[in-house]
């Protein structure tokens, strides 16, 4: 049996002899592997950005909503429960649930903010300082309001970056006074930039104010309170949820077995759903791309069949001097694998380059995983073996006398 390095040398020489043909054959694999790599990078990039947004949102976060009320069998929608959530509920949760790290009652309502001759419609969030703990948010400037300010109803506010951009073109907002629903609020801090949520909402478009001030300022129908809470860790999320549910059932005197008048929603459920859908998305992209890899493989088979016919005499010579069928099989198989592996390597580079460009021009998040590169490499070798086998076997079965006579 002939050794592997000699076989590879023969294969490389054969490929060099027909440079253009080898290159065109490789092109099929290059495009196929490149497409798979690019699609995986885009898919994984999307999935990673979903993941990071969810974890930024706090995968250990819980939200408590008042449930819907019922009037004569008509369900009235969230927040219509007979019993609303109160700030006392929030304080009780903070004091009595050991697995809960932060608790923030939240009221939100859209309103117009005005500074000088600029105005901007935004989301006013009335809350307590735990809000930035629960939402895992940071400040870029100034400070957040204190617990005392929150419950005292002081007219101070913390701005999201989008609000800063729209009201203060280049001006320093700290210390300035803006008007929300015609009530003056002093800016004490600015939130760090957060970007879009995976739902596409601009998370930086909000103004945080003390909850009492918000409830006073936002006249009309008082918005219902929801309570955002975070568990001490991801692992304690379920325990925290159970503690909150039990506490609230007690506080609202809900008998066992009856529907509570509140709901607890959990970010982890949302995260895993989003994760699963982005996985399907990635898989779909990759499987479409792998069709082109298949076409590339068929290209290899086609060229190898031509090559075997063309080199019938060479095969005859090799057999006459002692090549066994297995030697000839090996030679052509190695040739096919060399084409597909070289194509695979170039394709990986090509795919990485292409997805980088897509990332730059389409502003999509791109992420390469080492496993997808290894996968593409192994896959292209398998394509070579699979599509090279039939032509190689045909070569190995030639009769030496007939092969030698072939013109």
């Amino acid at each position: 049996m002939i050794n592997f390095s000699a076989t590879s040398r023969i294969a490389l020489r054969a490929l060099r002899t027909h440079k253009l043909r080898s290159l065109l054959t490789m092109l099929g694999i290059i495009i196929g592997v490149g497409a798979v790599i690019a699609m995986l990078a885009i898919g994984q990039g999307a999935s990673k950005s979903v993941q990071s947004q969810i974890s930024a949102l706090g995968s250990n976060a819980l939200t408590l909503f008042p449930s819907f009320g019922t009037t004569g069998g008509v369900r009235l929608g969230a927040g219509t429960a007979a019993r609303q959530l109160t700030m006392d509920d929030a304080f009780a949760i903070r004091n009595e649930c050991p697995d809960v790290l932060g608790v923030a009652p939240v009221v939100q309502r859209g309103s117009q903010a005005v500074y000088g001759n600029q105005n901007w419609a935004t989301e006013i969030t009335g809350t307590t300082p735990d809000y930035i703990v629960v939402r895992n948010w940071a400040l870029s400037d100034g400070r957040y309001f204190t617990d005392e300010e929150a419950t005292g109803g002081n007219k101070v506010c913390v701005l999201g970056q989008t609000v800063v951009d729209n009201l203060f073109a280049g001006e320093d907002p700290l210390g300035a006074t803006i008007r929300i629903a015609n009530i003056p609020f002093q800016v004490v801090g600015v939130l760090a930039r957060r970007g879009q949520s995976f739902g596409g909402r601009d998370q930086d478009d909000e103004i945080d104010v003390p909850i009492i001030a918000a409830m006073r300022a936002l006249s009309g129908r008082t918005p219902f309170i929801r309570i955002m809470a975070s568990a001490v860790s991801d692992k304690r999320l379920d325990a925290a949820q159970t503690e909150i549910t039990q506490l609230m059932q007690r506080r609202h005197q809900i008998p066992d077995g009856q529907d509570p008048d509140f709901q607890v929603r959990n970010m982890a459920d949302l995260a895993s759903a989003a994760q699963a859908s982005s996985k399907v998305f990635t898989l779909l992209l990759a499987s479409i791309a792998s069709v082109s890899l298949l076409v590339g493989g068929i290209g290899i088979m086609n060229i190898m069949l031509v090559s075997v016919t063309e080199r019938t005499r060479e095969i005859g010579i090799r057999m006459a001097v002692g090549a066994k069928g297995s030697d000839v099989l090996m030679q052509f198989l190695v040739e096919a694998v060399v084409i597909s592996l070289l194509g695979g390597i170039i394709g990986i580079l090509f795919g990485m380059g292409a997805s980088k460009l897509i990332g730059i021009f389409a502003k999509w998040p791109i992420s390469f995983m080492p496993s997808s590169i290894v996968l593409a490499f192994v896959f292209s070798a398998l394509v070579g073996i699979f599509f090279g086998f039939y032509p190689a076997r045909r070569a190995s079965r030639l009769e030496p006398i007939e092969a030698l006579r072939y013109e």
Partner: protein
Amino acid sequence: MADSIVDARSISKTYYIGEVPVAALREVSIEIKPREFVAIMGPSGSGKSTFMNLIGCLDRPDQGSILLDGEEIAALDRNARADIRNRKIGFVFQSFNLLPRTPVLENVELPMLYAGLPTHERRSRALDALNQVGLATKVHNQSTQLSGGEQQRVAIARSLVNEPVLILADEPTGNLDTRTSVEIMAIFQRLNRERRISVVLVTHESDIAAYATREVRFRDGRIVSDRPNAAPASADEALARMPAALAPPEVAG
């Protein structure tokens, strides 16, 4: 080494052209002793090529037995025949049959590659064989850059490297001019005399056959005459008589 290099007993081979059977060999028996130089002659279709294919282990007879260097080869499978060709037989063809676009050295190394010899041994044996056929200076040329005579010498070097017991040459001078033909015959004679390799050579030309020690004629699938050549011509002497300057240019195959 066995008593005879080739001992073929009533071998027959029939080919089918479509449905029509063509008897290429009919119960041929022949024994070739070590160090014989046999010229095989006969018209086209007389069965001499079939005979060469059978004793060269390229094909199997329908009937009969063939002992090659004491080993029965008539019923061997493909792989075993490839192995016998590799170890015991050196082929030289009319059309040289070198690998195109491949350096001379690698062409000569080819049989050793399939014998699984290590690189350095392949190299030294190939250089040695090329030296013997007088081509030591052209080892790195591409085979197709050589003249016909040079290509045939490369083929002879290739046939030698695995130290075969038998060289089978199928009209090795058919594509060469007179002087080059005699040069090639001189190499065969030297190998036969000095390295004691048996040579079986198919030829149409009786002046080529005159260099052999035995002449076998085929006709219609049978041996019709088999006689020793008591006084074979010497290719070296014939070359000495030829004025080199007047030799016609070689015709490349």
